[in-house]
């Protein structure tokens, strides 16, 4: 587009050149040849300038050099056209005089043209490289964020896997049918964990289905000690949340519940809608006396970080202690645009 404009201005200037020479009393033919030769040279030299700048953009401190280039090229243009034109019209004295007298004007105009082309392409180049580096930066940031999100999502505890395999190993001897069932559950759970993509929000219903697999496996491991209560509000089932967000919270709740008390443990999961946002609470019993004063464990910290990266908010994860119950509440905003920005 810029090139077309430039060509248009060149053409316009070439026409003006013809008219001016004709007004000095020369024939249209002479005026046309003069303009063609002079302006073709100008065009070629300007193009050379653009090409040079395309391959080498001087830094701000060296921009004075460009000024020098413009003077040299303009001088070349004026000298060359004078030589060529006086050669063609060797006998025509009136023309040769004009040709000599117009040398300074030709130089000044050539300088104006080349200088303008130079400035134009220098600015375009600088802007372009700036844009490119900015785009690279955003790309790098985006990649980093995605990598971090992937990392946060895939913090599946290897102990969970090894302990589950140990349970399967135990069942294989005494209850092979149950072992087979548990292998199925574990496979479904792992498959679900591996293929999830952060960009795609899931409905609560799907997420709870996945969570149920996890809970079923844990129930086989811990036997009667562990039970769960899921109170999911009908409306909230279709609301969206990032995949695998709840699993680390539930994992944390189970760990706290089972390792902090010796009795039976009930994990409660309650969902509801509030101000059109999705609210999920996960409650586990714990012993306030002996709980390690670590505050939110690593599991919860990574959930918080993930929520921040997805929604740019730090207030979406809350924990609350009420007597011997520890409750973690997550709020999932439901504006879909927020998740994609």
């Amino acid at each position, binding site marked *: 587009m810029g090139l077309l404009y430039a060509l248009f201005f060149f053409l316009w200037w070439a026409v003006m050149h013809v008219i001016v020479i004709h007004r000095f009393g020369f024939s249209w033919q002479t005026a046309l040849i003069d303009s063609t030769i002079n302006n073709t040279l100008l065009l070629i030299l300007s193009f050379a300038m653009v090409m040079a700048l395309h391959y080498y953009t001087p830094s701000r401190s060296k921009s004075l050099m460009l000024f020098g280039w413009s003077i040299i090229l303009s001088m070349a243009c004026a000298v060359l056209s004078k030589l060529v034109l006086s050669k063609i019209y060797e006998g025509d004295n009136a023309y040769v005089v004009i040709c000599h007298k117009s040398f300074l004007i030709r130089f000044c105009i050539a300088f104006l043209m080349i200088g303008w082309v130079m400035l134009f392409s220098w600015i375009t180049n600088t802007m372009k490289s700036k844009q490119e580096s900015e785009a690279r930066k955003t790309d790098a940031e985006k990649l980093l964020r995605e990598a971090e999100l992937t990392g946060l999502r895939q913090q599946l505890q*290897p*102990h969970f896997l*090894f*302990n589950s*395999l*140990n*349970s*399967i*190993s*135990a*069942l294989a*001897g*005494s209850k092979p049918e149950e072992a087979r069932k548990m292998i199925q559950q574990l496979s479904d759970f792992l498959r679900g964990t591996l293929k999830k993509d952060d960009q795609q929000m899931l409905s609560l219903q799907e997420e709870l289905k996945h969570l149920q697999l996890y809970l079923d496996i844990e129930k*086989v*491991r*811990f*036997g009667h*000690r562990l039970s769960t209560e899921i109170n999911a509000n009908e409306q909230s089932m279709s609301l969206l949340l990032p995949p695998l967000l709840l699993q680390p919270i539930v994992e944390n709740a189970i760990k706290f519940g*089972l*390792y*902090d*008390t*010796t009795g039976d443990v009930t994990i409660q999961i309650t969902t509801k809608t509030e101000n059109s946002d999705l609210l999920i609470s996960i409650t586990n019993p714990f*012993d306030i*006396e*002996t709980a*390690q*004063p670590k505050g939110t464990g690593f599991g919860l910290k990574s959930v918080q970080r993930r929520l921040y990266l997805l929604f740019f908010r730090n207030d979406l994860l809350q924990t609350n202690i009420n007597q011997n119950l520890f409750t973690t509440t997550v709020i999932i905003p439901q504006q879909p645009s927020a998740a994609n920005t």
Partner: protein
Amino acid sequence: MIKSVIIDDEPLARSIVKEYLQEDAEIEVMQECGDGFEGVKAIMQHKPDVVFLDIQMPKITGFEMLELIDFPISVIFTTAYDEYAIKAFEAHAVDYLLKPFSKERFNKALKKWKEQHNTTDTKSNTTSLLEDGQKQPEEQSRVVVKNGSNIKIIPVGDIHYIEAYDDYVKIFTKDGYSLKKKTMNYFEQTFNAQQFVRVHRSYILQIQQITKIETLEKDSHIALLKTGVKIPLSKTGYVKLKAVLGL
């Protein structure tokens, strides 16, 4: 007959150990326990020859449970965590089985135990299970003690001071003291040095408990605690205390 006890919080994990043990007519499982509290009772009662012990268990870990037992026992750890292996072998474990383990691997551990059991006196190789189990001390956040049949978990912050008492130490809290078979050096190394100071050969103090340091005569100082207890400070102890307090 060889007496064994299985301690693991997961029923299926216990059942696989039991299943593997059934092959061996010599070994009898005296009791299965779901946590360290039951574990301590079972060990006291049965005095087993070998204990199969999980590490991550409710309330107290397998290591903490071992600290509560006053006599030497042989331990084979069974856990899904590989990061405790060094600590386990420092505690002179017979073997360390990573879950899930095969029958071959399990039998190898048993064989190892039998070899150790037959050739050397178990006492000599397992007494150290209770001693210097901490070559690389990591900071402790709680201490598990046993008063009679009661097991108590004391958060480190609740400890006022520790006093040497023969082979034991007395750990003083607001509820009096508890005995534990550990050395003063052990506590000096595993407690946060900014919080606890060894002020005397026989005393480690929590600095928040100090209200006043009194000079009795030249080079003789005592620390007055909030509870009114007076603790003598040795010469070097006094210097160390001043350094920590920034005096």
